[in-house]
């Protein structure tokens, strides 16, 4: 019995960790190698993995996300939490595939009508609300408390002034200086961040492929 249990645990570890790690390494090594090859076979392999494997699996993962959303929404409707709002969400979600199924998704279809006259206006207005919150944050949080904060403030003020139509009234060197700040000190900091992210991504990718980084496998189970 004990032997059976240990064998079962071994198979479970294989399924949970070893096999995914091996697959991860195999696919990573294949695509890494293909990058340096120009042979037609290498190109075919690249195309197979990026189109057939990558995109199809990714599409399924998105569908899994949608199914999860539906399950949680139905659970909350049953519980009575924000019931009217949850029902509206669910109706919206179901309506889109139904409209697409009956009338298609082209040009002037009802599906596109909902997208253009319901989704786009609301989504862009939600984004537009940020204009007000940015204004409020400028008033409340943008204070020259220290020398670095003063630099932040000056850079922001220069940018805002140089990109307004006051540029015609202000001296030419004002806009030139704002542009210089953006193209040099500001760009230098952004470049350093970019290099830092690059180094981080590189090492993380290597750690993932070599099996040192295993957090993507989740917990022990």
């Amino acid at each position, binding site marked *: 019995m004990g032997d059976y249990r240990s064998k079962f645990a071994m198979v479970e570890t294989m399924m949970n960790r070893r096999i995914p790690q091996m697959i991860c390494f195999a696919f990573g090594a294949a695509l890494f190698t293909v*990058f340096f090859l120009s042979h037609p076979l290498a*190109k075919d392999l*690249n*195309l197979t993995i*990026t*189109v057939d494997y*990558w*995109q199809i699996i*990714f*599409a399924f993962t*998105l569908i899994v996300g949608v199914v999860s959303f539906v399950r949680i929404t139905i659970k909350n409707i049953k519980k009575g939490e924000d019931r009217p709002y949850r029902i509206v969400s669910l109706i919206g979600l179901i309506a889109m595939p139904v409209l697409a199924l009956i009338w298609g998704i*082209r*040009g002037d279809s009802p599906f*596109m009508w909902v*997208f*253009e006259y319901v*989704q*786009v206006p609301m*989504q*862009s207005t*939600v*984004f*537009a609300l940020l*204009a*007000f919150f*940015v*204004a*409020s944050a*400028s*008033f*409340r*949080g*943008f*204070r*020259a*408390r220290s020398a670095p904060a003063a630099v932040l*403030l000056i850079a*922001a*003020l220069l940018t*805002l*002034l140089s*990109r*307004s*139509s*006051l*540029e*015609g009234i202000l001296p030419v060197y004002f*806009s030139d200086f704002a*542009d210089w700040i*953006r*193209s040099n000190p*500001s*760009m230098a900091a*952004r*470049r350093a961040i*970019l290099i830092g992210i690059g180094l981080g991504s590189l090492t993380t990718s290597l750690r993932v492929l070599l099996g040192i980084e295993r957090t993507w496998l989740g917990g022990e189970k």
Partner: protein
Amino acid sequence: MSATRSQPVFETRHLIFLSLFLIILVTMLIGYNPEIKVTSETQKVYDYIDSLPSGSVLIVSFDHEASSLPEIKPIALTVLRHAFSKDIKLIGTALLAEGTGVGYRLITETAKEYNKEYGQDFVYLGFKPQYIAAILSMGESIPDTYPEDYLDKPYFSNEMLKDIINYDDVAGVISIADGSLTTHWIEYGASRYNVNITAAVTAAMMTTYDPYIASNQLYAMFGGLRGAAEYEKLIDRGGAGKRGMLAQSVSHIYVIILIIIGNIMYFVQRKRRRGSK
């Protein structure tokens, strides 16, 4: 319920919000269009498209969501109008699902203005998920990535696509983006397949791409409503960019005033606190 009752009817933030709303409302009702200067970055994008011989093929990728449409639409329209007026053939793609519907609408409506024909002068391929995979696979084979176009027509049934297999057959890519997707065009498209990338982005993303401009990995970039207004001036055609410039400028000044008032209040309070110690 009691929590709702205890909330004041009017708070400081409401005053800030209302002032901004009224300022933009009034400036838009005035309808005055201030004169603006064309920056060198917008000029570079214009010169690039203008220098392409007629019949060249450009990929225009709608890499944005519906949320940024009010800012993206004027930017996209200027590029599309300029390209169609120069008889450049366009292939429309989208790397974000929401860009798909928007891109199709924009490209077909602009094409109508210039009497351009679908399949001959422009084609819309639509959306592919997982942007890195889409960019890489298009580098190998566009027809394999998009066996059919957005209208479900087979790829090669479109006359203008007969000789277009991968990035080697196009003059470049213009990424119309509101996020970091242009980065992937640069890192995977330009680095690996040497395709020329130009960006038309929202203003918030411009500083993100500055290092790529400085290193010549990104050929040119313009953006924001202000960029759209500058481009409208270059192609001599008014639009939402030009119409919005007074409101844009006044809103900047409003934010500057808020920052100054906020700082004055901070320093007065700090002086008082130090005085009382």
